[in-house]
Each structure stands twice: as structure tokens, then as C-alpha cells.
């Protein structure tokens, strides 16, 4: 997996010799031109655009996202996302941390699929070191990946309902998620920021109760998932609110770099688990859910169906965890060979890429995360133009934004 895109030494030299031009203050501070009022045939009825700041403190922006809406009454003319309110410079912090320490920072990016984030870094490091990972680790990682995806989708479902005004669904989503977090807590030691992966394997072996509890949960959730359909999916108000709203075409999806369930709802088959299998995904049977409508309802449906697929993956693997070590032997100080390494994984939100540039030291020279939320958010304006305010909330909800993932 060692990739070399260009000569490392050359790049290092060229960077040191380059001088940074000072930016003229007059250039950097550009005053935006005042917005002209819309031309109206009647001089008495001169109208102006109506601006609203949605966020950073707002119940339905799911974190500290600030949207500047340009409204024409209820109709949205433009959405301008402003991000950066929760930027913690994780990528920069990675440059001073060892590879073991980096893993726990990725918990704090997309906290709803933290295990998958951890795994992305671990896989990148393992591939760089060309480590042999025990089979047991691979299977356990896959199971917990899918549990994480389920937990994330459950929370998303609850919040989606709440955004549309059905507060009860929020509690039901959390009720089911609680069972998964209990499983995580027992095996990994934490409910949300688990940090269960280490380069080379896992932090501990699975808890003796793990298999039993997961099976219990799968049985339980198979009964509860139809309830989700009864409460929301079939509801006539819900269908009216979501069908045909915020359509993204396949072309839009590809040109904006949208990934994950959001893209698959528009007919773009982009599941990394299928396209570039990692972990045990090449030996389990599962469908890649692809829909073609591209509207809010399709995005909703894709996630609901993905939950069924996740359940099936877990069922296939839970009885077949091979015996063996839970962690491969690694050196006390992990040093990656010089070069660039890239690893893609499918989080609950889409395609997470980890790009490591190593100069052979114990911490990376440069670390870059290609977070799915950031690209997905970029399609929001295209998607929400012409919709009502209430639709924007629904669209944003099906984009499933997690702000710490976007800002990092």
C-alpha cells in the first residue's frame, strides 16, 4: 500500500526555499457590495431580501453550524453555510502526536461513528507498516463498525423526527441506541468516544458478554425497526414533508463530492465497503442500498434500509469470530516509512479519507482527513434553493451533518 506520488526530498526542499508573499491589508479586507433591492414594477412595493441567521445556536443545525439564509417570505433564495465554530485543528495536533495518540483524536471528529474514524487511522498505519492483522481483530472491528453505524443511524432517525416536529421519535431512537452504547461500554470502556482501536489491533479483547448481548440486541432491534416505519416512514404528513423535496441528481452528487447514504439516495453507488473492501466486508453478504429519487425521502429510506443491512452483517459475523490474538505485535514507538498513505473507510455519513504524509519520524509530517460531512454540506445550497424554511430543516436532517466532523 506504500504509495509515492512525488519525490519527497524535492518537496521538502522546495518548501523551505519558497517565500510567502505578504498580503496587502487592502486586499484581504474586501467590503462586500451592498445588496441591491429587487426591482419591482410598483415603486410603492419595494421589497428587500430577508436575511436570517440560522445558528450557530439553533435547535436544528445539529451543532454550531451557522446558515445565513436569504429569504423571500418563506422561500429560501440562498443558503450560505458558515463553519469553523468548533474547529480544533485536529489535523495540526496530529502532527505533534504519535500514531497511537492520533487515534484518540479522531474520536472527536465524527463522534457518532468514532470507531470507524479510529479504524481509518489504524488501517492507514497498519497498511503503511505492512502489518499482519489477526483475523479475530478484523471480524470484531467489522461488527463494531456496523454497531456504530446502527447507533449513528438510530440517533439520526430520532433527530430527523424531532426536526420535523415529532419529538417522540427522538426518544425512541435514543432508547434503542442506549442498548448499543451499553454494549460498547462493556467491551470498549466508553459509550461515545471509545478509542477501542490501536494500530495493530484492538485495545482489549471483547468482553465475554459481547456476543450474547449483540445477539440480544439484534433480536430486539428487529422488532423495533418496523416501529420506526409505523411512526414516521408511513405517516402521511411525513411523506408530504419529504417526498420530492431537496432533490439532488446523480450529476450534482458527483460534482459536489457528496458521499455516503446521501449520495446513494441519488443513484451514485459509492459504498466504500463494496467498492474498496476493507476489514471483513469482502466476505459478508450485504446489499448496497441505492435509490434513484434523490429527494429527502430517498435519503431517509436509504438509511432505514441500511440499518437492516447492518443487522444482517452483524448476524453473519457474530457467531464466526475466529480465535486468536486481539492485537498484532507492534513496536513501542511506531514509525511509518517515508511516503504518503491514504485509507478510505465508509463511516455512517460517507467516505472518510485519511491521508498521512510521513517523513519517517514518530509523528506524521502532515495529516489530512477528507471528512464526508464537509463535502455533503457543500451541496446544501444547491439542494435547498427554492424550498421553504421547514424543508431546509428536513434536508439538513437527511444530510446528517455532524459539525465536529466538518470543522475538525
Amino acid at each position, binding site marked *: 500500500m506504500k504509495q509515492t506520488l512525488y519525490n519527497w526530498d524535492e518537496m521538502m526542499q522546495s518548501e523551505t526555499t519558497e517565500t510567502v508573499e505578504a498580503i496587502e491589508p487592502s486586499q484581504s479586507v474586501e467590503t462586500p457590495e451592498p445588496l441591491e433591492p429587487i426591482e419591482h414594477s410598483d415603486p410603492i412595493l419595494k421589497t428587500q431580501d*430577508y*436575511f*436570517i441567521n440560522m445558528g450557530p445556536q*439553533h*435547535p*436544528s443545525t445539529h451543532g454550531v453550524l451557522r446558515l445565513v439564509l436569504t429569504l423571500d417570505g*418563506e422561500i429560501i433564495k440562498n443558503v450560505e453555510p458558515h463553519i469553523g465554530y468548533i474547529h480544533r485543528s485536529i489535523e495540526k495536533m496530529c502532527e505533534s502526536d504519535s500514531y497511537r495518540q492520533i487515534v484518540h483524536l479522531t474520536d472527536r471528529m465524527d463522534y457518532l461513528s468514532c470507531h470507524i474514524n479510529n479504524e481509518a487511522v489504524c488501517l492507514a498505519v497498519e497498511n503503511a507498516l505492512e502489518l499482519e492483522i489477526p483475523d479475530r481483530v478484523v471480524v470484531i472491528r467489522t461488527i463494531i463498525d456496523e454497531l456504530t453505524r446502527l447507533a449513528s443511524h438510530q440517533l439520526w432517525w430520532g433527530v430527523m*423526527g*424531532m*426536526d*420535523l*416536529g*415529532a*419529538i*417522540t421519535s427522538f*426518544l*425512541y431512537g435514543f*432508547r434503542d441506541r442506549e442498548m448499543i452504547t451499553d454494549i460498547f461500554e462493556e467491551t470498549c470502556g466508553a459509550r461515545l468516544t471509545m478509542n477501542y482501536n490501536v494500530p495493530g489491533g484492538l485495545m482489549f479483547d471483547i468482553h465475554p458478554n459481547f456476543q450474547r448481548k449483540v445477539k440480544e440486541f439484534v433480536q430486539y432491534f428487529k422488532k423495533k425497526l418496523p416501529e420506526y416505519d409505523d*411512526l*414516521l416512514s408511513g*405517516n402521511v*404528513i*411525513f411523506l*408530504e*414533508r419529504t417526498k420530492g423535496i431537496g432533490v439532488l441528481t446523480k450529476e450534482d452528487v458527483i460534482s459536489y463530492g457528496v458521499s455516503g447514504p446521501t449520495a446513494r439516495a441519488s443513484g451514485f453507488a459509492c459504498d466504500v465497503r463494496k467498492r474498496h473492501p476493507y476489514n471483513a466486508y469482502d466476505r459478508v453478504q450485504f446489499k448496497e442500498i441505492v435509490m434513484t429519487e434523490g429527494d429527502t425521502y430517498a435519503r431517509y429510506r436509504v438509511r432505514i434500509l441500511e440499518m437492516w443491512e447492518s443487522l444482517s452483517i452483524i448476524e453473519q459475523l457474530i457467531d464466526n469470530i475466529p480465535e486468536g490474538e486481539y492485537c498484532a505485535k507492534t513496536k513501542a514507538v511506531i514509525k511509518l516509512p517515508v511516503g504518503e498513505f491514504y485509507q478510505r473507510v465508509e463511516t455512517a455519513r460517507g467516505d472518510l479519507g485519511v491521508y498521512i504524509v510521513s517523513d519517517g519520524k514518530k509523528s506524521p509530517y502532515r495529516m489530512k482527513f477528507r471528512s464526508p460531512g464537509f463535502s455533503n454540506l457543500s451541496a446544501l445550497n444547491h439542494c435547498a434553493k427554492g424550498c*421553504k*424554511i*421547514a*424543508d431546509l*430543516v428536513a434536508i439538513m436532517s437527511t444530510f446528517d451533518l455532524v459539525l465536529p466532523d466538518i470543522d475538525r
Partner: protein
Amino acid sequence: MQDFSLLTRAIHDNLSSHLSPTLTQVTEMVIVAVCFLTFFALTGMIMVYVERKVCALFQQRLGPMRVGPWGLAQSFADFIKLLFKEPLMTRQADSFIFNLAPFIIIISSFMAIAVIPFAKGLQALDFDIGIFYVTAVSSIGVVSILLAGWSSSNKYSLIGAIRSGAQVLSYEISIGLSLLTIVMLSGTLQFSTIIQSQANGWWIFKGHLPVIFAFIIYVIAGTAETNRGPFDIAEAESELTAGFHTEYSGIKFSFFFLAEYINMFIISAIAATVFLGGWMPFHMGSWDAFNGIMDFIPPLAWFVLKVGGIMFLMMWFRWTFPRLRIDQLLTLEWKYLMPLSILNVVFTAFIVVSGWHF
């Protein structure tokens, strides 16, 4: 059957034997006002508690459990908290209108409550145009919402207020038309006479399909009228943070909060009075023993039971359904509910003319 008019008559006689007629009038008014104020605050607090508990049970939670046994004193604690909170105002708010708005909404529901017949003889005003009065007075509340939204100098508030204006004005029509069916059947606008006309059976049972339709339409439109449940677009939490009362705090906020619940009570009380026989007990044809037992339950309890049932239904709506969008809300009214109501009225007229009702 208990008759509260005996009690009120006794008080009146007692007062007028000591005071001049004018003073008697004034004293009685003060007594009634004090009673209603107490009723207002108590009902509001009880309903907030019940709503929270019911909501919690729908959501597999326990609800308030800390203040008092089973959290019974929770809404009282909330009330004290709201009293002590600082009444904030945005700097550019129109202070006069901003402060006036909460009072208008309270006054409108206060006026509407005056004609509600709680039990036999327990009614402050028995107008001969009772239904007309109630529909007229309860729609004053929307003025307050519009004023509150406008004067807050907050864009969310303004959108909420305008949404609410469109909504309440539209749903007034359905409410009026569905009440009209009963007015046609009973031939009167007076609440006490409407109740008397249901002595041999509630309208919902003896009025055939049109009344059942009218009842369903009334409950839907009533839910919308109170800005609740799936129709809470005026304060749509996930869109407009809190809609028209975003900028209100403390006691002024609690006025809006209280008014929402009192309006819900009024809507349910009118439904109970008009469709479900008010304080009339439930009677089954010729089952004398059964009817005797039913008569034994006091009329006030019957009234509270019916109102509670309708309010529970409204809570059930609220905690199950997602919210409608503004255009869907208006579509529902103008394309579904209003044509149906008009048809319903025509159908009822046909029944009344033919004399098919019981």
C-alpha cells in the same frame, strides 16, 4: 342532579339584601373574576403537569418526578421560577406593544371562558349568542400573536407571527362551519339550550354522520387554532426556535404559555359542550339502572371527563405526528377541511329540513 343555580341564587339574594343593586352587581363581578383568575392559574398548572406526564408516558419516560411526590408540585415550582425571572426586552423592540401583547392573549381567553357551562347553573354568562360570541372572542388571540411577533424586532418572531396569522384565520372558518351544524340541529346559539337539547342523547350520537364529521373537523381545526400539535408552525421549535415568543421571558412568557393551555381547554370545553352533551351524563336508551348510576356522577365530573378526553386526544396528536409545513397546513384547510365542512353543512340542512334527526 346538582344545580349550581341554587347556590348562585342564594349568594345573589344574600348580597342584594345587604347592598344596593349596583353594588351587588359589582361585588358579584369581582367574585366571578377572582374565581376565574384562580381557575385560570390552577387549570394552567394542572394541564402543564398532565401534559408533561402524558408526553413522558408516550415516550417511555417518567416525566417530572422530583418536586413533590410524583413531581406533583413541578408546575408550581416552574411558576415561581417564571415569576422571578427577569423580563428581558430587545433594545429595538416596540416596548408598548411588546408589553401589551401578552395581556391581549390572556384577555381573549379570559373572555371566552366566561360562557363555558361547567355544570348546571355554573356559567358566568349565558348569552343567547354564546357560540357566536366564543368564536368571535377567541380569535382576538391571534392579534396578540401578531403584535408580539411584530414588536419583538426579531426575524424569527415575525415569521412565526405571520405564519400564525395565516393559520388561525384559515382554521376559524372550519371551526365556525362545524359548530354551525349543531346550531342548525339544535336551533339555538345559546349554550344552555344546546345542552338541554342533548338531554335525550348527545348530538354526536343522534346527529348521524354529519355531526361525527363536524366533530372530527372541529378537533382538527381546534388543534390548529391553539397552535398545537402537528400544527405548531407558529412556534416551530426546530425551525423558528420559539416563533413569536422567542424574545419573551419570565412572567410575560408564562402568559403566552398559560394562554396556550387555556385555549386548549376552551376548545375542548366547547367541543364537549356542543358535541358531547356538556355536563349531561351518558344515558343509554331505556337502561334505567345504568342511567341511574350515570346520573349519580356529578355534572361537573362529567364535564371534566369529557374535556379531559378531548384534551388527551389533542396531546396524543401532538406527541405522535410530525409538523406540517405552512403551505400544507393551508392546503389541508382550504382544499380538504373547508369544502368538507361546507358539504357537511348542506347535508345537515337537508337532514334538519327533512326532520330525520332524533
